[in-house]
């Protein structure tokens, strides 16, 4: 295994993280260091705890042991540096609102309590919509969007958070090829701006093309590091129990 030099900055540092439902561990003593400025995939079989890992970083799930730090601080202290893109199935798309309004929600964290979004926030939201190619649909009712468009809206909402770290839960699930290319293009752009992107990713075919790092997870962290070094048949077998080969 390649040893990291100790000089790099950790965007996310997970130490001895255990999450359990009653006595059933979902994540077991996971140590993961996500260096700043990388585009990292989190892969593993169903039930491996990928979403749980993301949610623990965000403090949405309380761990039974261990801790998570974002740039050396707890998530609560550093929440403005993190943007989260949940699975698009996690919300009700029949909610009475339009595309621009959903993207504006990404600004709420910066606004704090009570204060309403203003013109500057609207401009930022439109800029983000333009980046994901959805500006012309700003006033479209959200229940009229396709799967790919919904994912773009979520990505735009994360972009306006203007964060340092982006956590995305299966952004490529059930979307068209054009949207997938748009999204991965934007993620690579984010990386080139020095942002850190952590993506729950299922499709092992595209790992080498899309990501520079990968964490293979199956309740325990099997291995994490540069795709070129650790994305091997042997490691995949360890992760998927011989079910998947590459």
């Amino acid at each position, binding site marked *: 295994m390649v040893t990291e030099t100790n000089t790099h900055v950790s965007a996310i540092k997970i130490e001895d993280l255990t999450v359990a439902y009653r006595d059933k561990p979902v994540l077991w003593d996971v140590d993961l260091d996500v260096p700043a400025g990388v585009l990292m995939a989190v892969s593993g079989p169903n039930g491996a705890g990928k979403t749980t890992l993301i949610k623990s970083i965000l403090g949405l799930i309380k761990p039974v042991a261990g801790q998570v730090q974002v740039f050396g601080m707890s998530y609560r202290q550093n929440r403005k540096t993190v943007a989260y893109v949940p699975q698009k199935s996690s919300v009700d798309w029949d909610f009475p*609102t339009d595309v621009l309004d959903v993207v504006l929600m990404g600004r709420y964290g910066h606004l704090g*309590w009570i204060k309403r979004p203003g013109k500057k926030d609207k401009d930022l939201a439109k800029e983000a919509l333009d980046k994901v190619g959805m500006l012309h649909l700003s006033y479209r009712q959200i229940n009229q969007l396709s799967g790919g468009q919904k994912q773009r809206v979520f990505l735009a909402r994360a972009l306006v958070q203007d964060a340092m770290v982006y956590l995305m839960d299966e952004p490529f699930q059930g979307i068209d090829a054009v949207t997938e290319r748009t999204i991965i293009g934007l993620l690579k752009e984010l990386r080139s701006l020095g942002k850190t992107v952590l993506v729950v990713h299922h499709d092992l075919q595209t790992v080498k093309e899309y990501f520079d790092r990968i964490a293979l997870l199956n309740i325990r962290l099997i291995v994490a590091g540069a795709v070129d070094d650790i994305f091997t048949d042997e490691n995949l077998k360890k992760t998927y129990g011989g079910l998947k080969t590459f």
Partner: protein
Amino acid sequence: MTTPQVEVLLIAVMVAACCSLPGVFLVLRGEAMATDAISHSILFGIVIAFLIVKDISSPFLLVGAALTGVLMVAIVEIITNTKLVREDASIGLVFPFLFSVGVILIAKKIGNVHIDTDAVLLGEIAFAPFDRLVIYGYDLGPKALYVLSGIFILNVLFITIFYKELKLSTFDPGLSTTLGFPSKVIHYCLMAIASLTAVGAFDAVGVVLVVALMIVPAAASYLLVEKLYLMIVVSLIIALVSSVSGFFIATQMDISIAGTISVTAGLCFVGIFFFAPRRGIIFLIAKKTRQKLDFAHLMLLVHISNHEKLQERYNENNVREIYKHLNWERIYTSTVIHMAINRGTVVDNKGVLSLSNKGKQHVIETIMK
């Protein structure tokens, strides 16, 4: 109208207005049935608080009873979190218990006060003007009106001040929490507001009809408009219309006012359910039929265009034969042919159909797409 009648009307309007506001968020959160649970369990709180303060319209009674609603929500959550019982079942466990204890306490401890079990279920709005606010000998009107106005103002303030937070935590509770607006906290605030509203409305409409006034206007408004703030405004309007019209119908027919208001609200909903533009049943059926006909029209054009070569068109594109080739009903086929001729896409040339220029254009455009 006599003064008491005007007062009853005003109370009816205020109750409906108060209830419709938290109702919008409860409907959007899929927690409509929580209102049922809240409105039933507050009876327990009302009775206990009454036994302590001995005054049915004391503010302590209002707050105390509202806390029971929140307590109920918390107990349900604790039971659900054990994962031994599902949420719907734990709601069903908690509120009937609290409600029954409330009913037993009324029967045993409060014999001669005007809370009786009938009024508990349906309320008695007509008696509301009897309980008056009198300060230094001046009669300032029914107490209920003041209580309800207070609750209305509180609801309006809560929704306008925390509009952004309510919207976000309703649409995406996960993001709301990660951005620093804990959705649990907002959830409990909303439940507290709903409980307080239910307590305020209790005297007038009882525990059952509160549910109608909270849910029906919001559900109807959801079918009509596509923006959250419009949904709030429209549900308020529906609440006002049904309370005013319900009041007049009830006084004309000499029947229960609260009951009639619920019925008119229900009728409003039914009307909107059928006739709403975009989401009404009739519109949806018409849209489906239109889409089906449009597609049939296109299929007809494509069929004609595929067989426009000299020989076979006499057979394939024959007005009388074409239904066999398409395997359609005869009458349906002639409807589609008529539609095509009216639209000017198909020409009937002595019993043989051919495409007009417009028809050809339409086929090319659609196939190119």
